[in-house]
């Protein structure tokens, strides 16, 4: 709580349009030290790596011509927004990318820094900053090849501002990956009632159904902010096996891959592939 007040005092423009929701921050602060327990509160996020990392990796590889399978993301600069304890930053770093992980909760950054510090390769490849997305925009215009915002947009206060900032820090033709939860009756029953209150898959109070984002709304916001949506895939969590899989339906969880418009007016065939890149994606389900 103390760090929250310090945050408000230090940053005068936190009262202007900010995508950070202070109530949300408080929720995550309490669980800051639980990130790396693979069987603990964040178990579902750990196992989500099994589908989101290959999704990101294969999509990016399909857009590259020059890569080595031993270091597939080498040379890529990735921004992990809402990185938490670094659960997604670390695998991306291991695959060779230079990762910048940002999160408004200082305790999360502290946990992430400590966890990566034991591995010299990761310690060099990953940099963590306690910050909101808006705060880094000025110094990071068109800096990143890739942005990943996984399980984040359902927690932000202003989604349009968020997407706009993503666009600003992303290079032309850069990729944006989002995973989030749809706003449906099903997601209320399964995502809130069952997941939080009954089965405890997610700590209670983590999510607010009101802030869930339907894919149509997300796509619309992306397209009107200079992005071209390439892939939308449904994701399904099986609580019995503790594992995620891809699915046709986007009524619960889903993943999106969007590409920022290029600097050039003309687009070459190799630059913006129209076909769904990820091998395991079913049909590119839109509405």
């Amino acid at each position, binding site marked *: 709580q103390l760090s929250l007040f310090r945050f408000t005092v230090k940053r005068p423009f936190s009262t202007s349009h900010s995508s950070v929701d202070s109530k949300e921050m408080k929720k995550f602060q309490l669980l800051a030290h639980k990130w790396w327990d693979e069987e603990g509160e964040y178990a579902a996020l750990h196992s989500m790596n099994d589908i989101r990392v*290959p999704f990101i990796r294969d999509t990016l590889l399909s857009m590259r011509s020059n890569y080595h*399978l031993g270091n597939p993301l080498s040379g890529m600069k990735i921004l992990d927004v809402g990185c938490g304890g670094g659960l997604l930053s670390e*695998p991306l770093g291991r695959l060779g990318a230079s990762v910048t992980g940002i999160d408004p909760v200082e305790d999360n950054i502290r946990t992430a820094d*400590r966890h990566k510090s034991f*591995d010299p390769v990761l310690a060099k490849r990953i940099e963590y900053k306690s910050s909101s997305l808006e705060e880094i925009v000025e110094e990071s215009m068109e800096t990143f090849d890739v942005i990943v915002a996984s399980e984040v947009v359902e927690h932000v206060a202003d989604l349009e501002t968020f997407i706009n900032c993503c666009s600003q820090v992303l290079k032309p033709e850069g990729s944006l990956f989002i995973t989030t939860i749809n706003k449906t009756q099903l997601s209320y029953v399964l995502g809130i009632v069952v997941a939080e209150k009954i089965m405890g898959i997610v700590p209670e109070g983590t999510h607010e159904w009101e802030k869930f984002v339907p894919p149509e709304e997300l796509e619309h916001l992306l397209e009107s902010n200079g992005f071209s949506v390439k892939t939308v895939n449904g994701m399904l969590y099986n609580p019995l096996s503790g594992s995620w899989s891809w699915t046709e339906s986007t009524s619960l969880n889903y993943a999106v891959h969007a590409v920022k418009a290029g600097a050039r007016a003309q687009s070459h065939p190799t630059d913006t592939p129209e076909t769904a890149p990820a091998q395991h994606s079913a049909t590119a389900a839109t509405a």
Partner: protein
Amino acid sequence: APLRSAASAPPLYDVVVSGGGMVGSAMAAVLGHDIHFHDKKIALLEAGPRKNYDHMPDSYSNRVSSISPGSATLLSSCGAWDHVCSLRLKPFRRMQVWDACSEAMIVFEKDDLDDMGYIVENDVIMSALTKQLDAVADRVEVFYRSKAVGYTWPLPSHSCDTSPWVQVELADGRRLQTKLLIGADGHNSVVRKEAEIKNIEHQYDQSAVVATLHLSEATDNNVAWQRFLPTGPIALLPLSDTASSLVWSTSHDHALELLAMDEESFVDSINSAFWSNINHSDFIDTAGAMFRSAISLLKPSGTAVRQLPPSVAKVDPESRAMFPLGMGHATEYVQHRVALIGDAAHRVHPLAGQGVNLGFGDIACLAHHLSAAAFNGSDLGSLKHLLKFETERQRHNVSLIAATDVLKRLYSTTLAPLVLLRTWGLQATNALPPVKVSI
């Protein structure tokens, strides 16, 4: 936040393999040649000195292994099989297994004229693996004369200041850290003991006598022979047209006798073991003959042609040796940041010729999961994929180890009912293609 100074910490490896025998060396070589491990650091710890395999002696070594086609494929995947082929090996097409107490026999051979397996000297396999390890020396560091004396295990979900890695202490005081420790250090595995993994073990009151034998006359020699004597199975494994390797599992006392007797008596014992019918009884022979005619009524093409094993003329001096036999199975193959492979995980009786093949099977499975984990950017020591390896291999290994143990006990007796059971069982199995194929 205060960052741990990496400079003072012992060197960190992605994988440390403890034990530089055939299985440990192959594990390191396979990972070293895996594309997804291109930028990883692997260490192989071997307590003994580096051996010079440049010159293969003309005489055969007395330690050989029966290599299955699956194992050959694994060795191929890291480029070692080519070296084996260019050194020496003996493919065999057929296995004849029979009982000393009856006429019952079972023959294994492939329908197509493919090789069933290969008899290869262990030194040849080591020479090939050493070459392939040298080829990836930028990724795989081999530490010779480096016995690991202590391991420190991390806590599963690590707290603030303790290292999340496994700490390894060598005899000379050097220390290493690793994200995954693979124990390939044999049936008395230190890794397994230090990890406090319970091991179900049983010493057979048998030892295996090995020797290199010279046949009375040159022959195609592409058949592996095994006869079950009441004291234990005797096997003749082909090395060349004129030489075969002996593996004779028998009581400790008999093994000592065999080692002590002069060469002529030794050769006589072997020939007598393969040819003598002293253990037959009229009762069993009649019962067996009856069963055989019953089968031929139902299935005319019943049993295969019985070949005669070659007779032995000489034994290589200095080639006789013996080693005790036992059975063992670890209750767990994996723990957080630890995996056991080969004899460290399971030890079998040589009667099935499976020992090292089980180890190579472990390697194929573990390497598959580690390769996928590396390509997913996962923490290599994570139980998630280690448990998949354990499940797959235990499922495969347990039934084979149990069956081998049962066979060993079943064939260790002359009691009529059990002999009858196994005689009929063997005859039935020989006549039924589906059962034979699955073996």
